[in-house]
């Protein structure tokens, strides 16, 4: 299981990456993708949609389940990773490159952990 140091993590298993230009990328962690199994589709929001801490902003489908993805921040979607629409398996293959959305005008972050804390959190079976 991989926990890159430069990222922050939420308790609902999203990673958060702050980019130099002020936008923030959000994706699913390695732990999340392994729990979800082979993903077959991602329902992404649209650019311009607002995101609120704790609200579901997209969902991911495996063969026999659909799971909500919860927002670790509040802001506005500036871009979605359209590559995932044709290749949802990228989340399984390289979860930290397969970002779901880029967010701008971030007003607030939810409670986030660093990589070490998140690794412990996962090890505790959350």
């Amino acid at each position, binding site marked *: 299981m991989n926990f890159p140091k430069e990222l922050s993590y939420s308790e609902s298993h999203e990673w958060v990456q702050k980019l130099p230009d002020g936008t923030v990328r959000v994706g699913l962690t390695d732990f999340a993708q392994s729990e979800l199994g082979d993903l*077959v*589709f991602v329902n992404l929001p649209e650019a311009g949609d607002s995101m609120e801490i704790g609200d579901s902003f997209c969902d991911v*489908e*495996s*063969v*026999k*389940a*659909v799971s909500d993805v919860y927002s670790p921040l509040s802001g506005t979607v500036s871009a979605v990773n359209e590559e995932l629409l044709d290749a949802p398996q990228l989340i399984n293959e390289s979860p930290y490159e397969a970002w779901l959305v880029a967010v701008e005008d971030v007003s607030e972050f939810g409670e986030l952990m660093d990589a070490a804390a998140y690794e412990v959190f996962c090890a505790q079976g959350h």
Partner: protein
Amino acid sequence: MGSYVPSTPAQRAEMLAAVGVSTLDDLYRDVPRDMLLTGENAAPGVSELEAAGELRAMAAKNHVFGAVFRGAGAYDHYIPSIVKRVTAKEEFVTAYTPYQAEISQGVLQSIFEYQTMICELTGMDVSNASLYDGASAAAEAAAMCRDRKRRRVLISGAAHPMVIQTIRTYCEGADVPAEVIPVRDGATDLDALKAALKDTDACFYLQQPNYFGVIEDAAAAGGLVHAAGARYVMGVNPIAAAVLKTPRECGADIAVGEGQPLGMPLGFGGPYLGFMAATHDLFRKLPGRIVGETTDDAGNRAFVLTLQAREQHIRREKASSNVCSNQALCAMTAAVYLSAMGPGGLREAASQCYAKAHYLAAELGKVPGFTLAYPEAPFFHEFVMACPVPPEELLARLEAADILGGLSVEGGVLWCATEKNTRADMDRVAAIAREVAQV
């Protein structure tokens, strides 16, 4: 009298002992006493011989007409013998939904073939595994088109009244508005449609041919709908679809229809078949089951129920439809029918429907007082004709001759002819009409 229970009294006693209770009633200890039925006055059933006799007596109280000139949503076409032979196979009849793909390839492949045929018939890209009937398919199609901004559903007033009613009922359930576009000269008033279309409209539903039999200018309607940014849903007759411009050629986003003409008996209204096909960009919004092709662990071609994360058993209240059962055996009926007829046979049936309806209209039109209600409008195998006497009089005379005449509607009688109707029968209809008109 029977209950189809094979276990003998001795076996029942053995099983009760194994379970650790002494009577069958003991199994219901959680049922509150005051609602528990004792079975003391439970009426017995009757033997198979008697039950079949009762039902046969009911069947005998119906009249099956020797010739049918009535359509209006249910059509009397020839059903090839092979259709009934194949679809009566007990494996197909007694199977459940093909959840276990390894032992359900027969059903899954038959649905995959059906999906392909519906795509071919409509010219569309993707089809689901079927829905309940044409009306509920139209209502489901309208629901597919709704999003946060576009809610209202527009319906052609020339659609079948029961389809309009069903779409309305579904819309009322979902608390979304539905508006009916008026009819002019037997066809949808396209000027009224253009004027009605707003940027909050989800879709427009057009029936082709329409309830009055008229062939609509479906491509023009589609242009108006798309110019307003809404989706275009066409309800098509599947026999006519073999020869008329396809929904794809008319620009439809979704094609639906009543599949009964494809080998299903009239059956007093059901079970029939709702078919639905759409353009590729809408495939994830299709309601109900969908079969897809894949491979098994040895690399062989295999079929499975797929895209299931759309469905109610996974998405629950977020699912866009609650559809679970479909009409699988009716879908198979349609596939066998289409295979038996082949492209040539289907076109032949369609062109005979067209030719015979036009012959009937011409023959009736020779009788004084019988004039087409919409003389300028092209029609397929149904048409409305004025009747110089109260329609009930004419229909009663036809009934006495074992002929089911057309349906009495506003403006006259809605007649239908199919490949089953003979020239002799049509001449009899015209002769009786002449007699009635001359009295």
